[in-house]
């Protein structure tokens, strides 16, 4: 049949491939799925308001993004890594080994982590200590360290609702889990006295005690969710007793399905987080490869656009979507303008 035509078409195609220029004019971004919605809002607005093409934003996780950033310098490597946790020394070393020496650290704002349950269920007023009591493998009961005996929330504190303990928490690959471990489990562990007991059990080794604080019960009361918040929401929909861990912006998009719990008596709002009253929050970052600044068209403009008051300020679209605007934004703007690379981690 027309094998000859096909063969010649292939030949033409491969010549065309070789001939086409592969200079990149789009900004390439990868990293945290928590930062992704914000980055895509900015990318969209940037594409609309400038002559530069809309940047391409990949998700895939903070760690994966930073690793990609550190792969080297050149057009087939990414320009920006979004990250929901701070860059690690190992990343910086990896970067340096591959010739990526100057990196800018840009803090875009803060993200609140909220605890929410089904809209028709009872209201919850938690403290971090409650969460540690509910989920930890070992808790202090009557002054003794025992395997977690709590079945109902009101077993922990009489004024919590009588509802079975069932928590959907982010899986260990999520950046959110780190914050949950640190700001909820460890803080709660210290509050309810388990930390001291665990430290004593480990002969005063505080590192080991911290680790023990984060050890969760395995009887099905605490369920790791490796997917996204949409999966957590679906789980709560199926099991009305569940309480899930969400990002503030996700909750604000689903206020008709979810009831948010207070933490230490504070309702999570962007204002409460900005003031530092609500305890469970974390900064969000992106990291820029300085070597690409004058190579990829629009990169510098994009960074300045991202941290401008119009976008990242308290009245901008990011704040409307649930990002807690950084009170020190002006400092960040100054830094970005001067292209100040980040110093060593302290």
């Amino acid at each position, binding site marked *: 049949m027309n094998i000859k035509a096909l063969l010649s078409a292939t030949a033409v195609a491969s010549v065309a491939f070789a001939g086409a220029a592969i200079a990149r004019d789009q900004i390439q971004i990868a990293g945290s799925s928590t930062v992704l919605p914000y980055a895509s*809002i900015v990318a969209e607005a940037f594409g609309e308001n400038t002559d530069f093409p809309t940047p391409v934003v990949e*998700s895939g996780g903070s760690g994966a993004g930073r690793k990609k950033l550190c792969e080297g310098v050149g057009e087939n490597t990414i320009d920006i890594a979004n990250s929901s946790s701070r860059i690690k020394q190992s990343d910086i070393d990896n970067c340096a080994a591959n010739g990526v020496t100057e990196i800018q650290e840009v803090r875009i704002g803060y993200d609140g982590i909220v605890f929410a349950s089904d809209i028709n269920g009872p209201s919850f007023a938690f403290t971090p200590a409650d969460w540690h009591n509910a989920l930890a493998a070992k808790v202090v009961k009557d002054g003794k360290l025992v395997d977690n005996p709590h079945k109902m929330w009101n077993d922990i504190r009489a004024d919590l609702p009588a509802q079975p303990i069932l928590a959907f928490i982010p899986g260990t690959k999520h950046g959110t889990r780190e914050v949950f471990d640190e700001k909820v489990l460890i803080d709660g562990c210290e509050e309810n006295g388990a930390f001291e007991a665990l430290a004593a059990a480990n002969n005063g080794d505080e590192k080991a005690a911290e680790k023990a604080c984060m050890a969760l019960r395995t009887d099905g009361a605490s369920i790791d969710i490796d997917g*996204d918040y949409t999966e957590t929401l679906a789980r709560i929909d199926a099991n009305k007793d569940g309480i899930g861990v969400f990002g503030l912006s*996700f909750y604000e998009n689903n206020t008709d399905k979810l009831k948010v719990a207070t933490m230490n008596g504070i309702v999570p709002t962007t204002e409460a987080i900005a003031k530092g009253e609500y305890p469970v929050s974390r900064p969000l970052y992106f990291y820029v490869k300085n070597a690409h600044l004058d190579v990829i068209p629009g990169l510098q403009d994009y960074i300045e656009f991202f941290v401008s008051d119009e976008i990242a300020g308290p009245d901008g679209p990011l704040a409307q979507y649930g990002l807690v605007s950084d009170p020190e934004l002006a400092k960040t703007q100054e830094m970005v303008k001067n292209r100040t690379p980040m110093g060593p981690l302290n």
Partner: protein
Amino acid sequence: MTDATIPASTAGSGSASARSSLLTVDTHTRRRRSSEARFRLLGLLAVSLGVLALLGLLASIFSNGLSSFQQTYIRLDIHLDAARLDKAGDRNPEQIAKVSTFGYAPLIQKAMEEKMAAAGIAIDGLSANAAAELISKEAPAELRRYVLADPSRIGQTVPFDLLASGRIDGYYKGRVTMASAELDRNVSPQQLQLADQLKEAGILETRFNWSFFTAPDASDTRPEAAGLGVAILGSAYMMLIVLALSLPIGVAASIYLEEFAPRNRFTDLIEVNIANLAAVPSIVFGILGLAVFINFAGLPQSAPVVGGLVLTLMTLPTIIIATRASLKAVPPSIRDAALGVGASKMQSVFHHVLPLAMPGILTGTIIGLAQALGETAPLLLIGMVAFVREYPGEPPAGFFDPASALPVQVYNWTQRGDPAFVERASGAIIVLLVFLVLMNLIAIVLRRRFERRW
């Protein structure tokens, strides 16, 4: 057979209890028959379970997704105010381009106020700002594009069909109700009342959503504007590349292996490897693609060319196996006859065997393509699972521009916070299914029309 022989032998022995005839069924036969009936029932059960599962899946996808083919629009007359858009008044495109989309939002709010006044609509406790929130955040961008395309339009009053925001759109699709709006921070019952009155006045209408097929993806704040344009284009580019590479390579390889290659250990090894490759998980090809095409060959990330190459590798074994099977199915008499009248080996293959095997080859190719079309895992590693808003350019240069793909778009949308994206994702699944069904139909038609049996 045993039924007939056993009674005969026992009858011969003269025992009265064992006497039986072929007409009355003995226990052994009954057991065999009931076991057959059981098996049939089991088979029927398995089939109906499968059908039930399929129906459940389709019902959930269609009930969630069909509404994405409808979209709510609001018609407003927008005055492109020169005082806002061109303060200097000299229609200098550079100056006009400096007015960002934030500068266009007040125009929409004003047009909304005027429209409400003209239609005599007033809602208690609804601010002008909240009334303007009925309009999608995409609208200012649309206005800006319109103005920049021809700055002389400034000063005119132009009627626009603007997208209604996701929540309002959801109200007419049953996703948002007055009761849920009570609790929802992104929409109030007053806004829904306004929407109802606008609908009565004929200002708001729901119609077929063409832009779902043409528009690019949109960010989380404007689900109503999100479309499949870039994804469909990206998938089409990849399929073109897969077809252009895997068909000739696959067919050439199979012809050589089937017709020309000597049978020895080496070709046996190749055969085994091809069969094994067909069973390799697709993500492995993604890892390979990242290492070879991006890191080594320096091809760009997120580009259909890399996606196409990776999917080609994935599809090749399928095509080779299908092609070899259909070459084998051509009876040797055809080859012998061709060789017998003096044709060369190559002539016999290309003039006689290959045309007869073509329907089978094409069927295999289309099924391989359909498989590649639905693949997400390898694309994850080469950066195609991304937020891409720019359309890729025309081929061949466009093969190197970032693009998305249909299954990737489904995956992306299911992760978004706004519930409106659930509908979009299901809509995208329907589009993908339609493409797959079409491809399979073509394969079936080709087979039916051209296949020959010997």
